[in-house]
């Protein structure tokens, strides 16, 4: 544990980070920027897992291993989403969600 810092403060920090990510996800219209807000949210969750593991039961490594899996999944998701976005850009020459209406009608 970090000296002089309680679990509540770390959880408040991750809550604020998560909702900054939600605000960005709702207000952005660029696909890459939306994906970046998603990364902020995933990161907040990973910190939460690690902090709860460290503060509540430091002998069991469950939270840390879940956090490792979260990071691996986030890397896979980002690679796949960016491949889709690049292909979309080659099809429609834009990455703006307001202008991509291929599947709308």
């Amino acid at each position, binding site marked *: 544990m970090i000296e002089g810092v309680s679990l509540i403060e770390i959880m408040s920090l991750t809550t604020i980070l998560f909702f900054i990510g939600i605000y960005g996800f*709702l207000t952005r219209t660029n696909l890459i920027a939306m994906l970046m807000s998603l990364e902020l949210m995933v990161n907040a969750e990973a910190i939460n897992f690690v902090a709860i593991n460290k503060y509540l039961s430091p002998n069991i490594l469950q939270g840390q291993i879940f956090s490792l*899996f979260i990071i691996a999944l986030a890397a896979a998701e980002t690679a796949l989403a960016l491949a889709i976005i690049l292909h979309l850009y080659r099809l429609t020459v834009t990455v703006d969600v307001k202008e991509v209406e291929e599947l709308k009608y």
Partner: protein
Amino acid sequence: MFYILSAIIIIFAILSVTSNKLYRATMYLLFVLVAVSGLYFMMEYDFMGAVQLSVYAGGIMVLFIYAVMMTDNIGKPMRNISWKRKILPFIIAIGTAGLAIYAIFSYQGISQTHEATVTNVEQVGEKLLSYKAGGYVLPFEVISILLLAVMIAAIVIAKAKKLVNSEKN
């Protein structure tokens, strides 16, 4: 030190979701990720900090920077939506964050341990590869299959032929 890192994380996260230029937003996201890895190092989880630095700040950021560069959005400011469309997400985010923080502060059942334990990489590796009760060898294998599938899928999607527009009409 923790408060400096938290201030860096929150300030650069806000800059990253409000910045008008995509390349700058990517750089601010990089600062957030490095500060988060500093948080892991402060919790004495060296392996998590190293993974965060190498996978997030190294790998994912390079992918983002490549994507930003290949979609020629570096200098151009992004489409700016009006402040009226931003008010509702702002209220939603602030309201739910306040509610969640209130719930965290009013919960009394947290019993922190104060024992100082040192976790080294060896324990993490043994836990990841043990097939006894509480071991994680099955998710480990599943995630390696998943990474292989994602790699093949990314190659297939990136190499796909351009759709012919005359077919549709």
